[in-house]
């Protein structure tokens, strides 16, 4: 066997545009030299590298990736803060795409419910862009998007457009109205679970979920109450990740590497150890 190239060498990317969306949440557009990311699927992620600082796992946020991709990032720590300091034209490194995204084949011909909590909207957005671009392949489409404060609403303009469409049912609610109102929706106040209760979801739906770790437990309960099958609930799990290649072990969850076999899993696939869904804040 001959020596291989290290999977740790990043692809060169250039920061093309930076669009503030909400406080500490920006949309970054990055162009990639060699087009090697063009096969990206909704739900997959890349490792974004800021030299000298480190890498962070970031979901691909645009439905289609050719020369450029979009990343929606929240400033929470070292790498993300360093990204926020960069200017247009800066160099960043990218590795990926990694993992299995949402099961697009499985979804074909079925009703879809996309559920996003907070920043979880990032991969969900790539999914809605994708399914809307291939609208004819799907049945009903419901989008549920909840957040803590209305001021944190991301993709405001895009959602306004979606709200006007008749081929997608959009539910948006915040737990509290802080700052500007939400776009015109019937119920502004509430949690994701309240919207699941309201929405006409039944056992024929395929459901895609992404949100903060605490959300999953409650969303699953609500969906099961609506008779959605475990095998039809698809969860995108956030785990600590260092390599993306099923080696560093940080994302190992219930017998699986989230980075390679996930981050999207069907509830049925997941070994129901407490640590898969439950989490603690310390």
């Amino acid at each position, binding site marked *: 066997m001959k020596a291989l190239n290290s999977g740790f060498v990043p692809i060169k990317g250039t920061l093309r545009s930076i669009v503030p969306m909400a406080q500490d949440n920006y949309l970054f557009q990055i162009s990639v030299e060699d087009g090697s990311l063009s096969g990206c699927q909704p739900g997959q992620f890349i490792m974004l590298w*800021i030299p*000298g*600082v*480190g890498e962070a796992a970031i979901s691909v946020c645009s439905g289609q990736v050719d020369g450029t991709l979009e990343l929606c990032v929240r400033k929470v*720590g*070292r790498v993300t*803060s*360093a990204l926020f*300091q960069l200017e247009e034209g800066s160099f960043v490194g990218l590795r990926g795409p990694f993992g299995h995204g949402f099961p697009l084949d499985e979804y074909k011909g079925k009703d879809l419910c996309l559920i996003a909590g907070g920043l979880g909207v990032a991969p969900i957005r790539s999914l809605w862009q994708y399914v809307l671009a291939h609208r004819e392949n799907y049945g009903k489409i419901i989008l549920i998007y909840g957040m803590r404060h209305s001021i944190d609403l991301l993709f405001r303009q895009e959602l306004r457009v979606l709200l006007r469409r008749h081929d997608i049912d959009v539910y948006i609610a915040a737990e509290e109205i802080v700052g500007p109102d939400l776009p015109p929706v019937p119920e502004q106040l509430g949690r994701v679970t309240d919207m699941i209760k309201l929405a006409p979801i039944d056992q024929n739906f395929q459901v895609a979920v992404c949100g903060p770790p605490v959300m999953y437990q409650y969303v699953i309960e609500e969906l099961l109450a609506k008779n959605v099958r475990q095998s039809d609930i698809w969860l995108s799990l956030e785990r600590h990740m260092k390599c993306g290649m099923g080696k560093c072990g940080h994302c190992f969850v219930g017998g699986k590497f989230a980075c390679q076999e996930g981050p999207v899993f069907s509830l049925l696939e997941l070994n129901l150890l407490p640590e898969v869904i439950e989490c603690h804040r*310390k």
Partner: protein
Amino acid sequence: MSTNQPLPRIAVHSLTGCAGELLVILENLDKLLPFVHVTSFPFAQGKNEIRPVDITFVEGSVSQPHDLEKLTELRANTRWLVAVGNCAVWGCVQRAGCNHCSVQKMIDAVYGTNSPIEALPAAPLDHYVPVDVKLSGCPIDATQFLAVTANLLRDHLPYVTHKPVCLECKLKENGCVLIEKNLPCLGPVTAAGCGALCPSVGAACYGCWGPCEEPQMEAMATILSEKGYQLDEVLGRLQAFGAPKELFVRLEKS
């Protein structure tokens, strides 16, 4: 960095401590000098101005009102405040001392009851002001200091972990002194960074880098008492280098 930009400015100061960090910084100054402008470093140079700087390294604990005034002034004049050394991060041995004897009692004993001299119970910097980066060590590790400075010079937060000394000890492939020699090694509850210096020479870690992330103090005490160490001696050892009292609440109850 382009060459016509002014160099980032740094300041190095000490409150109450052993000057160890000053010494480490002084000894590594030749590596730093091409990339920084030292605006103040009273230990090492005669001309010192207090003015806004990018990074301020502060050694020592806050142990008297004068320390506090100085710290407040330094904080107000810096973008990044870096606590260097166990004294600044945890309070080191003088904080442990304050655990078993009140400062006022000590002052009275030394300088008499009417002494104008004031002292505060030794405390780490973050008891009084926000601290951006904590770099423990007694003394700090020069390599880590330079790496952290390299990040700060670019305005980036450095990656500082608080895994236990045992990790470094095993990476060096030392025989475990806790197991092989029954020594009271505190490696399991002490933050790594030193490169497991003590176990590497066959001695017990005595905790000079301060506690690791979420140290399992109760388990440590159990294991040491099983080896025949008295609980009060164990507690003394565990607290000697400034580990905060809160970590021992449950232990002291039992």
